[in-house]
């Protein structure tokens, strides 16, 4: 069972999206979380001045599945078709560290006590890092909703925040899930259909081209960044083993050289820590950023598809009207449909434009912030490494 509640760290951690808590009327954060076996329980803390809420400040425990429920209800709400729906947070994935813990337990007999303790410490840090990441991503999801003028008023959002009992009753039952699944399938069929739809508006034409291309590129970049980070971690692991082996050798050697070896072992140990920090900072600032925006880009694409579908509907309604006029039957109905489709389409286009423009601004700001922070951290770590190494060289030379 692990829990976190370090506020200072949260400030650094919450960086994937710009600070979304700038509107004091509704402030949401996740100060605490508990990990019980497979389930993570997030403690949502709300501070609000909005009258529709029963209390000005309160806390409520929620599970990951509750977040998914909230996301899905918002996706399925017609009125929000013209908005970019904040991407759902991914499921907490502790599989990696858990597997490693398991392997470590199995290999305990083949390594020294110190090595085992060190690796255990490392794994616990890894566990904590995964934990922090998942808290951050759930937090950002809620904050995106709370800072959006339309979403923050959503009824289900309020229920999510306030309902003081278990939400599982309201969560998707099997039928609903099936419905949702079907909807997703239809959507991907639409993708093919809609990409072919002729676009009259230049803005949207550009956006479509951009988003389609960018989404595949950013997915690729995310995967490559993940591999790079993993390699970094492997190198750090190796430093750990080397340090252990050096210490082992030092135990047997004559005094002067023994000190030399021990100092070297120490250096490798410290290098390991630094390399680990480099890897995890890179992951947090770069990989997480890319991951998040991969999902966000998908949400933007979804908006485009919904609009494109509305356009297709409008065009169909036009055809239906023409047919009706030809046949001389149900003209009024067809006219009504056509008007409605046009309205819907226009509404989607208008809000879509706004959303996509602010999305780009948001993206640029987030990239800038993260790239700057990552670079500053890289410089800091490299400087630390260098002074550590130079210090050691001096000591070893003077021996």
């Amino acid at each position: 069972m692990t829990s976190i509640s370090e506020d200072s760290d949260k400030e650094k951690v919450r960086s994937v999206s710009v600070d979304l808590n700038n509107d004091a009327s509704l402030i949401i954060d996740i100060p605490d979380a508990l990990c019980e076996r497979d389930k993570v329980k997030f403690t949502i803390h709300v501070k609000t001045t909005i009258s529709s809420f029963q209390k000005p400040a309160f806390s409520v425990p929620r599970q990951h599945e509750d977040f998914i429920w909230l996301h899905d209800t918002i996706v399925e709400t017609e009125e929000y078709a013209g908005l970019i729906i904040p991407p759902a947070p991914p499921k907490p994935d502790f599989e990696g560290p858990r597997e490693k813990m398991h392997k470590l337990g199995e290999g305990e007999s083949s390594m020294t006590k110190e090595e085992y303790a060190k690796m255990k410490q490392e794994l616990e840090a890894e566990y904590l890092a995964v934990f922090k990441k998942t808290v951050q991503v759930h937090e950002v999801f809620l904050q995106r909703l709370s800072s959006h003028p339309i979403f923050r008023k959503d009824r289900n959002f309020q229920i999510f925040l306030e309902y003081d009992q278990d939400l599982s009753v309201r969560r998707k039952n099997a039928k609903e899930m099936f419905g949702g699944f079907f909807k997703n399938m239809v959507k991907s069929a639409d993708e093919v259909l809609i990409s072919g739809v002729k676009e009259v508006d230049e803005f949207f034409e550009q956006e479509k081209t951009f988003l389609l291309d960018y989404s595949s590129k950013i997915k690729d970049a995310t995967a490559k960044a993940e591999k790079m980070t993993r390699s970094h971690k492997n190198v750090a692991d190796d430093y750990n083993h080397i340090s252990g082996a050096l210490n082992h050798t030092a135990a047997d050697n004559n005094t002067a050289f023994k000190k030399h070896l021990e100092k070297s072992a120490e250096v490798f140990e410290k290098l390991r820590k630094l390399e680990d920090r480099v890897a995890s900072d890179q992951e947090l600032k770069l990989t997480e950023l890319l991951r998040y925006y991969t999902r966000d880009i998908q949400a933007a694409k979804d908006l485009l598809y919904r609009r494109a579908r509305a356009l297709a509907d409008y065009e169909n309604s036009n055809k239906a009207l023409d047919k009706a006029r030809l046949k001389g039957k149900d003209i009024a109905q067809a006219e009504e449909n056509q008007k409605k489709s046009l309205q819907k389409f226009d509404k989607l286009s208008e809000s879509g434009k706004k959303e996509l423009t602010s999305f780009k601004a948001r993206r640029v700001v987030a990239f800038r912030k993260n790239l700057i922070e990552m670079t500053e951290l890289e410089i800091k770590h490299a400087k630390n490494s260098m002074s550590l190494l130079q210090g050691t060289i001096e000591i070893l030379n003077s021996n």
Partner: protein
Amino acid sequence: MSEDREAPALLGAAHTDPPEPQDAEDLFVSVACVTECPEAARLSAEDLSPGSDGHKDPDDPDDPDDLFAEATEEVSLDSPERQPILSDGPSPAITPVTPVTISPRLDVFDRSLDQDDEEEENRDTLDIQISVSDPEKVGDGMNAFMVYKVTTKTSLSIFSRDEVCVKRRFSDFLGLHSKLASKYMHMGFIVPPAPEKSIVGMTKVKVGKEDLSSVEFVEKRRSALERYLLRTVKHPALLKDPDVLQFLESSELPRAVSTQALSGAGILRMVNKAADAVNKMTIKMNESDAWFEEKQQQFENLDVQLRKLHASVESLVCHRKELSVNTAAFAKSAAMLGNSEDHTALSRALSQLAEVEEKIDQLHQEQANADFYLISELLGDYVRLITAVRGVFDQRMKTWGKWQDAQLMLQRKREAEAKLQYASKPEKLQQARDEIREWEGKVQQGERDFEQISRNIRREVGQFEKERVKDFRVVIMKYLESLVHSQQQLIKYWEAFLPEAKAIA
């Protein structure tokens, strides 16, 4: 007699390489308990008294005069077996002058201090440079082989020229090692092992694959061969060995066929190795010298530790290479992302990021090379060297075994003679007495050999330890400096990128 004694004494002083000063006392103390054979023990007890001739006891069944007589023969510089190992410096072959050198041992030890320092200096400032370069492929297909240029630059007089270039192939190096091992290992010399064969690596090269792994393989081998030669000539006895000189200087070298695994000699080697392994298990040596026991244990431990360290470093090399590859892949991906990005400033920043990551990938490559050539290969060399050291300890055990066997035989012969005393068969009695004398000589030779090899090993091990500590110190330092360089570069790259990131508007 005195003449004889002087000459050998001089020789003893000049040619014995005595052990480290701090071991001197140990040697004195330990020699007394080195054997269980009563006759030999008496000999040693006398030897212990400094300055004594140690051979004046008329009741001594081991007639000192006889010993001297034998000694004189061995001492002769003109003796044919000794010819090739002529030297004006320390030479092991001439030193089995044990009975004589035992007495003036104190003298020898006094001189030993100077000797050792000189030796040390000689090893440190050895004026010889050897480089192995320009690998060239000769021939085609499965019969192809690589030829390396071996350049020796030196001002030492034993070489005929200041600078010599010869072409050698891998089997030549193996042949050289094989000869040196057969000459010196049984005397307790640590002969540096040659680089290992690699069927996979060589096949790729033969087949003509010009890819990166073949190039790397050839470079790895070239470097290993260079290190091998440098280590070999560092050893003063090996440096003066005619086979070594021939290897470095003569333009034509007879092809070393016996190094092939499936040749007659190869099979013989395998059989011998197996026999040795069996022997090791059956000879239960009574180690009365704590130094040897301690050292053997120490080397066993070191073997395990170095192997573990080597494995960890190999893993580091592998992962760093992976890191380099993954960083390059990310760089490309970031560049494409930058191209796709429609916000101009962000697009530029992403392209810059891609460039930085590309440079960092290069950095990782270089660091991986440093990891490998500085540390990993060195550790590999030392793992093999330690095997050679342990081999030398095994040789000592073998020598001890031979000595014990000789003593047993002598005993049997004596018993036989005693029996014949009452059988009145004068010719047989005489024969028995002759045989006794023969085996007495063998026993003495066995003891001498054993003490000689023990001495040699002490010296060799002392030198080896010094070299090892020095090597590791130097390498660790170089490696840390390479890491510093990497970090400096990283700082440079990221500091150049920072304003680019800040410029995103």
